């Protein structure tokens, strides 16, 4: 039997090419994911060990920081050469009005324990010196030699302790893995001063130890731990391992996430494989029957198919592994050229897991996919060898299949629908129970849909074929008929694409819905796209200067500016009094011009009180500024927190300040661009004029923030799904080329009776497009429905749910499907047109 399998492989190897490619892509994905996570782990390990420089041991307090005595005992221990406490602290760095937070560390007592590396200049030598990370220095506009001030954080009413220091060196920017990497280095004594000024003891949590003799690392560790009570002693290796393991929890989640997509690719690949083997078995029916005639048992016939599948699976997975290794290694070659300070390893580490899993998964999937065709092979009767082989009768779909499909769709769909409506109807803050139920229902129902695909995919293909039939001439007619000739195969091929297109659509529907829903939330919370606010100081809202006002007005894209005026006063109602409250107004006409619309400002005689004051609608609130007091009625529908109409505001007198500006954009201006130019303008103005930087806020700002997050996540997920989509396209090409082989005589007949080469090519292109578009379109419809259900489950609780249709993405999916169908037909039609018309006369 082995000889038979090998000869079949030699003869029909080409027919297995597509299946091989599919499985190789899938296992390459698995390999790349595993190798990638290994790289992340190694990199993290390197980064962690680097932060301990040349230390041999790390001492830490068992409970809380290390005491003076403990440190002294460590230093006195005979094995210890040097010990240096690790002192870390956060502070503020400030230069010419620009401030930044800095995570700082003190210099180590011995240069061998120092992990900080400078790119230029040197580490601080005196208490009046500091070294900063390159990025931090750049943000503050600092160069080596410049003076800056550093300050402890202080509470509102307290002037913080402040030191003036000179920048002596720039540190390598910590990037990628932020394991306590400091962005500022000061001397040990300055750090102590700063900590003491806060009233905190300058006690370190950890100390690094250099041993006299590092040959007996473990022994010295144990001796030290026993000699000094209340301390933990670890080797650097142990500590790095521990840190990385804690961090790995996150990488494992990430790896699992990526592997899920690798799994989807393998499922899609299995459809391609199953198709291939079904065709191979059908084509070999006569040979198989002959084998049965001469005495092969059913078991042997099945074994031959499965053996062939294992060989194909093994070879293809090995190729896939090689591709994965190559990809991962290329990444390692590319990353260092990006000049990130991530200590990536230079060569990938081939762990047993990274070798075994891709090959095992690829081979297993291939063999599993070949099980059903192998079963079909055993059903070939020995008698079939004696009969001329006619077209394989296409087996009708079984009742079991129908029942399973309906069960899956009805039960799963029911659970999903119930969970969705429950999430909509009830008002729970944590929808995770509904989400879980929804995921379960979704998985069950989509399984049902895929099982039952054979009931609706051919119908859809036939429907689409009507178009080809109507407008495609003879090639269109033949293609339309051919596309549904083998409903099972068409269904399987289209399903592969359905899965890919469905998931892409689901994700982009989710993203679009999240975007629209967040937009609607923002519309409720922000009356304008962009507002410029003066930062609050101890007395309340700050004041925007005329220079700032002028700068904002002259910023490109800004059409109109509506100033918001503020007074500080006292509000009282129903026995409650709020002193030092900010009272606001804006010119009604100007406000309506810049607002997005639907803005209700308080009318004269009314006031909008904030929710936290808990004032019933219509209750009277009295406002007092200086000596004048007015009484107003609370309007719960109006916008703002202590906002009133300008006429009432004027009655209060006092000296109002412009605390913020509402900005109306020129038509066609891009809000995100305006926001960034406003930020630049205001930052420059603040450093040149010495006023605090005004903040730019509003819906546009928020939108830009989350839009980037959503778009990035969507791009990543679609990129990961791309592999599955590519495999599905390979599947379409596979089905077409197998059909071309099967229909060799038919193609030749058509050529003999007058079908041109180009028409034959067109015929296959149409068939490819029908299969691809049916798969993609059904996938898009299902993806839309599941995407809506999913977003409802996730977003219903946060309010503002607005279901969206990602029209642009849907159009892209259809165009891609169209192109994929055409592309998939290129190679098969080359084979087909090479068939000479004479082949029609051949008798087989």
């Amino acid at each position, binding site marked *: 039997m082995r000889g038979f399998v090998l000869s079949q492989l030699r003869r029909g190897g080409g027919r297995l090419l597509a299946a091989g490619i599919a499985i190789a892509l899938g296992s390459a994905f698995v390999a790349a994911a595993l190798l990638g996570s290994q790289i992340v782990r190694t990199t993290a390990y390197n980064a962690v060990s680097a932060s301990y420089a040349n230390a041999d041991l790390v001492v830490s307090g068992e409970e809380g920081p290390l005491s003076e005595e403990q440190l002294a005992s460590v230093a006195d221990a005979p094995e210890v050469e040097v010990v240096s406490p690790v002192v870390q602290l956060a502070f503020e760095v400030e230069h010419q009005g620009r401030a930044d937070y800095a995570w700082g560390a003190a210099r180590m007592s011995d240069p061998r324990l120092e992990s900080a590396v400078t790119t230029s200049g040197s580490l601080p030598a005196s208490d009046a010196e500091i070294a900063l990370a390159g990025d931090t220095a750049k943000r503050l506009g600092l160069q080596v030699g410049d003076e800056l001030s550093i300050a402890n954080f202080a509470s509102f009413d307290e002037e913080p302790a402040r030191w003036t220091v000179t920048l002596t060196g720039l540190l390598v920017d910590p990037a990628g893995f932020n394991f306590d990497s400091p962005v500022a280095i000061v001397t040990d004594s300055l750090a102590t001063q700063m900590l003491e000024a806060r009233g905190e003891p300058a006690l370190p949590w950890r100390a690094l130890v250099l041993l006299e003799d590092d040959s007996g690392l473990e022994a010295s560790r144990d001796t030290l731990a026993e000699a000094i009570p209340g301390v933990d002693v670890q080797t650097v290796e142990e500590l790095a391992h521990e840190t990385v393991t804690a961090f790995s929890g996150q990488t494992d989640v990430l790896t699992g996430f990526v592997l899920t997509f690798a799994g989807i690719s393998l499922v899609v690949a299995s459809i391609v494989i199953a198709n291939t083997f079904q065709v191979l078995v059908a084509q070999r029916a006569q040979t198989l029957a002959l084998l049965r005639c001469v005495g092969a048992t059913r078991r042997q016939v099945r074994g031959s198919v499965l053996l062939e599948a294992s060989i194909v699976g093994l070879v293809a997975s090995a190729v896939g592994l090689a591709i994965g290794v190559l990809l991962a290694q290329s990444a390692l070659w590319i990353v260092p050229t990006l000049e990130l300070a991530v200590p990536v390893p230079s060569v990938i580490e081939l762990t047993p897991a990274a070798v075994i899993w891709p090959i095992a998964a690829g081979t297993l999937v291939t063999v599993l996919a070949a099980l059903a065709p192998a079963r079909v092979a055993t059903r070939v009767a020995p008698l079939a060898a004696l009969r001329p082989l006619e077209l394989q009768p296409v087996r009708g779909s079984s009742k079991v299949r129908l029942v399973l499909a309906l069960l899956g769709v009805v039960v799963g769909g029911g659970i999903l629908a119930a969970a969705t409506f429950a999430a909509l109807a009830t008002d729970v803050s944590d929808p995770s129970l509904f989400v879980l139920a929804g995921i379960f229902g979704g998985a069950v129902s989509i399984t049902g849909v895929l099982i039952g695909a054979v009931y609706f995919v051919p119908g859809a293909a036939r429907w689409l074929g009507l178009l080809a039939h109507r407008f495609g001439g003879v090639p269109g007619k033949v293609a339309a008929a051919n596309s549904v000739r083998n409903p099972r195969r068409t269904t399987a091929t289209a399903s592969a694409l359905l899965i890919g297109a469905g998931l892409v659509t689901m994700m982009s529907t989710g993203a679009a819905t999240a975007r629209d829903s967040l937009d609607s939330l923002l519309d409720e919370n922000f009356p304008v796209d962009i507002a410029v606010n003066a930062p609050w100081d101890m007395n309340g809202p700050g004041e925007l200067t005329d220079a700032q006002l002028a700068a904002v007005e002259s910023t490109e894209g800004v059409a109109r500016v509506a100033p918001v005026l503020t007074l500080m006063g006292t509000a009282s109602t129903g026995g409650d009094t709020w002193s030092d409250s900010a009272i606001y107004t804006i010119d009604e006409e100007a406000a309506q011009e810049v607002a997005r619309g639907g803005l209700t400002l308080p009318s004269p005689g009314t006031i909008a009180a904030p929710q936290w004051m808990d004032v019933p609608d219509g209750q009277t609130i009295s406002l007092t500024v200086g000596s004048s007091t007015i009484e107003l009625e609370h309007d719960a529908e109006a916008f703002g927190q202590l906002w009133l109409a300008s006429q009432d505001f004027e009655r209060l007198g006092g000296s109002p300040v412009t605390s913020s500006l509402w900005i109306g954009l020129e038509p066609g201006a891009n809000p995100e661009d305006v926001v960034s130019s406003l930020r630049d303008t205001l930052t420059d103005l603040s450093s040149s004029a010495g006023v605090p930087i005004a903040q730019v806020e509003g819906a546009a700002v928020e939108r830009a923030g989350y839009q980037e997050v959503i778009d990035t996540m969507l791009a990543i997920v679609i990129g990961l799904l791309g592999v599955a989509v590519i495999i599905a396209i390979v599947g379409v090409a596979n089905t077409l080329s197998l059909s071309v082989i099967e229909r060799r005589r038919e193609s030749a007949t058509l050529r003999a009776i007058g*079908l041109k080469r180009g028409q034959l090519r067109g015929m296959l292109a149409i068939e490819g497009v029908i299969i691809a578009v049916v798969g993609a379109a059904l996938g898009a419809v299902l993806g839309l429905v599941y995407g809506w259900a999913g977003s409802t489950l996730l977003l219903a609780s946060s309010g503002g749910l607005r279901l969206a249709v990602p029209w642009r993405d849907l159009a892209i999916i259809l165009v891609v499907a169209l192109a994929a169908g055409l592309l998939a037909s290129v190679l098969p039609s080359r084979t087909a047109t090479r068939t000479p018309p004479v082949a029609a006369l051949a008798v087989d």
Partner: protein
Amino acid sequence: MTLNDASSPGATPAPAVRARGLKKVYGEGAAAVHALAGVDVDFQAGAFTAIMGPSGSGKSTLMHLLAGLDSATSGTVHLGETALTSLGDDALTLLRRERIGFVFQSFNLLPMFTAEQNILLPLELAGAKVDREWFDQLVDTLALRERLSHRPGELSGGQQQRVAIARALIARPEVVFADEPTGNLDSRSGAEVLSFLRRSVRELGRTVIMVTHDPTAAAYADRVVLIADGRIAGTIEDPTPESVLAGLDALRTLESPVTQAVAG
């Protein structure tokens, strides 16, 4: 009946198909096989001609070249006034579409189309209108009226071959090539198909060239062209099964091509 040199047709109307110096060589050098070693032959319009010869004689190759399905190594083929040997693939395809019909041994109907769709396929390819009268005449002559909505899978071999004949004739081609049309049929259906082919020549005025190795089938033709070792070995006018057999026997016993009359 006589066995004549095929290249001297005598005073008859212009031939439908004409071959001159036709050679076909497969392979190269020592491995070269001369499937056709220089054939001159004419086929009369409005006649039913059978090409006969033993296996490997080159009869199938000759038909492929005459029908423009394959290209000759040297020599010319004319269909009416058109020289096939100078045409490119698209031109040949158009020529086959409009001027030639085919009947295959394995019927070669498209399984997903009904009998009627199969019959009309050549017209659709050409984008030509269906001549209903001609269609009805064909369908009635071939007794297919009841079967038009059936797919090939639901038809017997004889019925399928009749559909194939209708398909070959629907575009009124100048010549129909039939390649062992009875090879896959039982003798009764075979006889039926052959009489239809003969009727289409006698009653419908078509030209049919049939390749066969069956003397009984060849006897339905007006004339038999004998071929052996890639050369024309002779012709038999108004053949009977006996005269064809005798001709074939003569081919086997004589080393050189049969050139003189054989008693019939």
